[in-house]
């Protein structure tokens, strides 16, 4: 009844090309933005800001990065965490070695470092496809982490290879409290997500999708596969790199190369599969789901079984349920949460008169 586009006519090309063509969607979008920018920092407590919302935002960004590569350009990658590491260590070194380096610029430069590394490891994609490529991206995963541990220059010769990020100061304003760190993450993620949304609707994005659906056919219609694939690798790694830098600066404060391990790469892959392959929105939903699910299971296990079963069994049960839910979810909705959202919207359009 309320969610209906009847009477909304598109009179110009601009209107036709908006991201949200339905007014209710636009209003909803601004309401959500306002909620997260204004209401959340005002009312959420530290636990939610620091331990839940900030990581969800950062992982969403990484998931968008992987989604660009896997969901839009069709190249499976298992090395996202390593590109995050490049971004984090890159930003750290720019801040460290160049006096007066502005934070935002350092983050972007960190992302660009990741993009450059991404292009190098994307080169094999020109010849290798599918799981062969996926396993080959593991080379990036292991090599980058190894290099960051091995060459002390990256961690400024710290004895254990761990870096402690510098303070975030933008125009003399220090982002030091959880609220501020959350806000700066949110701002960066929002801008980049918007950019990604527009990118995938542009020529570039369409070229990616053409290559994804069939690269030979795409080549026939005049899309250069090499340029397109490398572009996807570069943009994807850039997003992962920025996410990695935020992971270091606004979330953990101290990062070690081993933190960016294969597990994290898989987690990000889970996020896009659960959230929805080829959907920016899905990246957010998937990140929230994968971050929250184990925490929820842990809390639920304590409140229901607390003390009734041995702690080890409870912890293993959590793992079993987590794995089981993932499988269950893949079986029930292989297209992810984004698809559920879509179905919900279509239902809402007809509601309350479905016939």
């Amino acid at each position, binding site marked *: 009844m309320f969610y209906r586009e009847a009477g909304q006519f598109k009179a110009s090309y601009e209107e036709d090309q908006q991201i949200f063509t339905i007014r209710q969607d636009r209003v909803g979008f601004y309401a959500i933005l306002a909620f997260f920018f204004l209401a959340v920092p005002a009312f959420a407590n530290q636990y939610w800001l620091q331990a839940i919302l900030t990581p969800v935002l950062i992982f969403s960004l990484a998931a968008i990065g992987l989604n660009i590569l*896997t969901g839009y350009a069709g190249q*499976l990658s298992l090395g996202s965490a390593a590109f995050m590491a490049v971004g984090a260590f890159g930003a750290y070194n720019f801040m460290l070695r160049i006096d007066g380096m502005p934070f935002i610029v350092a983050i972007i430069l960190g992302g660009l470092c990741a993009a450059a590394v991404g292009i190098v490891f994307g080169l*094999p994609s020109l*010849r*290798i*496809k*599918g*799981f*062969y490529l*996926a*396993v*080959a991206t*593991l*080379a990036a995963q*292991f*090599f980058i*982490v*190894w290099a960051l541990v*091995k*060459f002390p220059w990256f961690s400024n010769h710290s004895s254990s290879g761990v870096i402690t990020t510098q303070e975030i100061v933008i125009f003399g304003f220090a982002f030091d409290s959880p609220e501020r760190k959350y806000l700066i993450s949110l701002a960066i993620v929002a801008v980049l997500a918007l950019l990604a949304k527009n990118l995938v609707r542009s020529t570039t994005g369409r070229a990616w999708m053409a290559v994804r659906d*069939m*690269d*030979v*056919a795409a080549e*026939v219609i005049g899309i250069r596969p090499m340029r397109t694939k490398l572009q996807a690798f570069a943009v994807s790694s850039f997003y992962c790199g920025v996410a990695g830098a935020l992971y270091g600066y606004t979330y953990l404060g101290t990062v070690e190369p081993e933190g960016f391990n*294969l597990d994290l790469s*898989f987690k990000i*892959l*889970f996020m896009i*599969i659960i959230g929805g*392959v080829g959907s920016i929105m899905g990246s957010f939903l998937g990140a929230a789901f994968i971050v929250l699910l184990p925490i929820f299971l842990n809390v639920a296990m304590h409140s229901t079984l607390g003390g009734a079963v041995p702690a*080890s*069994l409870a912890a*293993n*049960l*959590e*793992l*079993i349920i*987590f*794995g*089981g*839910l*993932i*499988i269950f979810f*893949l*079986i029930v909705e*292989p297209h992810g949460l984004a698809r559920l959202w879509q179905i919900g919207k279509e239902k809402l359009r007809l509601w309350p008169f479905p016939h």
Partner: protein
Amino acid sequence: MQFFFEVLIGGLLSGVLYALVALGFVLIYKASGVFNFAQGAMVFFAALTFVGFTEVLPAWFGLEEGSKLVFALAFVLALAAMVVLGIATEKIVLRRLVNQPHITLFMATIGLTYLVEGIAQGIWGANVRGLDLGIADEPIGWIMDSANILVSKFDVFAASVAGVLVVSLALFFQFTRVGRALRAVADDHQAALSIGIPLQHIWAIVWGVAGFVALVAGLIWGSRNGVQFALTFTALKALPVLILGGFTSVPGAILGGLIIGSTEKLAEVYIGPFVGGGIESWFPYILALGFLLVRPEGLFGERHIDRV
């Protein structure tokens, strides 16, 4: 030169052990097109179940601890558990994901990894256990004496087990009815179905065989390094073998294992010191990657032809 050969032989023998794990991947990928990431977890599960049974069986039935009977019974029970696990996976998970994109199936097997790990440690506990197969891990005397080259008895034993396994699997595929059906399924699911090959039946068998391979790999790796969670990491050693040898080739897995095993060791010894060592984590992947650039379908993989 003697040192070179020593490293080379050691590497080849380790390579066979990698191939053993890779074999499980190949079987399942060949038959059902699933890149089963849970193979590592299955190796862990199989070995832990075996050791777990050797611990509880004597108490349950009053058998002599460590006797041959206990080992045999535990082996049969662990094998049964693996077959049940395989069939359950096929029935509950894969059957419902038919026709989904490969990546979805792949993710389902990662979900399965968590599940299997949780079940294994939930049932048997997190303790690290030793496993003694009764083969001493020491240099073979006469090779040591004559050529001063170190060759471990245990590795030779493991390599022969792997060799026997591969030959029997190859014979099984070549000469039995099920084997032929399996090759037909591998070639083309739909064509196989249309001539009346029971697809699900074949899949269940393949998962069962993969479970058996996992058990053998688990026992050998477990008796080398102990039965513990780290057995799941053996999968990471198998992946480069897999891309080098091709996802669908049994001989490819063996040859890939030999190449990866030997070059990895030689690289660690001769290149490692110049870059600070520890290159074994990524070197096999880079090697396989370089190889793929020349032959994108691996050593023995099937050439894929794109049609528009």
